[in-house]
């Protein structure tokens, strides 16, 4: 089944030494579906990868998107409107996370792979399915 993915989760998949790597990788194997992301999430993940893993691995994420391993979903005006509403609720939700959750709602995607604590709380509030189910943060 398809799952929306956050920037932190994409990074966790990439970095074998990250505390969330094993949980995120196991979730991907169980989901067996495409990982869907919006452009701000791709740039977030690439920025983290460039800083902590090097530019070559940041570009690897771009390549994975070009190859369809990560499915880039264009944002629509209504996603921005919903993201504004979600962010106005508080909870320290980032713009990338809010846009991800707005796109998930529009697309009917119920599964969200996310490791950032604030976003995980928002996913739970919205009644979406959280992956990994357990918080594996170190």
């Amino acid at each position, binding site marked *: 089944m398809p799952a929306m993915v956050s920037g932190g989760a994409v*990074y966790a998949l990439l970095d074998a030494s990250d*505390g969330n790597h094993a949980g995120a990788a196991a979730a991907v194997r169980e989901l067996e579906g*495409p990982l869907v992301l919006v452009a701000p999430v791709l740039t977030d993940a690439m920025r983290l990868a460039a800083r902590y893993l090097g530019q070559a691995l940041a570009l690897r994420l771009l390549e994975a998107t070009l190859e369809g391993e990560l499915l880039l979903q264009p944002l629509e005006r209504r996603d921005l409107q919903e993201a504004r509403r979600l962010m106005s609720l508080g909870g320290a939700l980032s713009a990338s996370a809010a846009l991800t959750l707005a796109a998930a709602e529009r697309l009917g995607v119920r599964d969200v792979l996310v*490791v950032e604590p604030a976003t995980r709380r928002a996913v739970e509030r919205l009644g979406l399915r959280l992956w990994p189910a357990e918080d594996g943060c170190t």
Partner: protein
Amino acid sequence: MLPESYWLALKEVAEREGSSPSELIREAVAAYVAERRPKAEPSFVGAGESGRGDVSRLAEELLEED
């Protein structure tokens, strides 16, 4: 709709293998779908190692530092 030449070739293969054209079509579609489905695990999984364990958990804070 299959072109006639494909249909005849399919029937020939099915007869030779003791199968049926419909069974071969099912097998071909299943193989096609399996090949084109996204991989269960993307190729970039585990491609890097930062030596840090907390980057993804702190992603939002780290990105705000920029």
